[in-house]
């Protein structure tokens, strides 16, 4: 059985190893490992073109737009640990515009893809390229936003399962 020292989903719910749902999740241990593995890949310093802080701000913005209260604190903590600008974190957290034009464009793209994925169009992708992002960086950013949509739903579903267990 895989036992990662830190699993972001378990920490967000929270799910301790003595909780019945912790064991339920491990019945799909490949999914648990690849979900954490995806998270690690999304925020890896090896991915070029977007800084780790920029990616964490994308995540915080996605959590705010999706009202994902169980995951937002994780990204807030990581941003602080990363030494990101406190004013920028506070602005993203409050849904206020940020000063940096590139970050503003990235966050606008994030909000749209999280809330209205059908509006994804060629012009939006081309404008990212025009703002200086390479193809691998655009793929990384798209994967990140799409992954966050996944992570937010896994956490929301598990939270509801925990709630029904607690009430039983």
């Amino acid at each position, binding site marked *: 059985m895989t036992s990662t020292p830190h699993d972001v989903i378990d920490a967000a719910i929270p799910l301790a190893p003595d909780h019945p749902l912790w064991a*339920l999740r491990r019945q799909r241990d490949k999914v648990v490992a690849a979900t954490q593995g995806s998270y690690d890949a999304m925020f890896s310093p090896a991915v070029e073109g977007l800084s780790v802080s920029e990616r964490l701000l994308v995540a915080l913005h996605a959590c705010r737009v999706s009202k994902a209260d169980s995951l937002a604190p994780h990204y807030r903590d990581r941003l602080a640990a990363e030494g990101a600008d406190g004013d920028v974190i506070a602005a993203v957290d409050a849904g206020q515009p940020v000063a940096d034009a590139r970050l503003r464009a990235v966050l606008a793209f994030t909000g749209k893809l999280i809330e209205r994925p059908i509006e994804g169009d060629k012009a939006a992708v081309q404008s990212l390229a025009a703002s200086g992002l390479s193809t691998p960086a655009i793929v990384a950013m798209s994967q990140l936003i799409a992954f966050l949509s996944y992570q937010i*739903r896994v956490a*929301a579903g598990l939270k509801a399962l925990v709630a029904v267990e607690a009430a039983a």
Partner: protein
Amino acid sequence: MTAPIRIKGFTTEVLKWKPWLDTVNVDTATPAQLAALDEMSPQARTSPYFLVLAHQPEILLQRSIAFNAIMFAPGGMPRAERELGATVESRVNGCVYCASVHAQRFEQLARRNDVISQVFEEPEGAGTTEREKAIVEFSIRLGAEPDKVTADDMRKLKDVGLGELEILDLIHSVAIFAWANRLMLNLGEPVFPEAEASDAS
């Protein structure tokens, strides 16, 4: 197989997908890129979609492991119902390509497509049995408003006979298509057979 369904822009026809970004060239791909493609499926090396995603091999590798484990793992929710959850999420998000692929898989596994016609027409209220209706309703809710999912939603699934592993499988199936739809809708577009035929002429 019966004639393809075509309702409100959604279809069970086999579609192609045209990327808006350049793809990785298989002949010059790195070992990590090839490993990620092969982890996904034997066809991934010829798929424009996966060849775009191969620009980030570690991310594609992890996502491929998750995707295959969610959709194909034995036990738990029957595979046809996982495909139904995937199709509903894709219909709600407006992902014509994903809806086509996974509606076809549902049809292959369940040997019927009545519920697919209903989902394409209007996801709300679709389902041919109480169990199917509950699966569809939950898929819509988790897809559209994850913050509003509560213990009551879980009780509704349990009331129609879903066990906890089946519920977990459904959560994962809907969630992985929240992911897949956003890539498909954002990095390229579906190509219908007739459009391709007229391009070629």
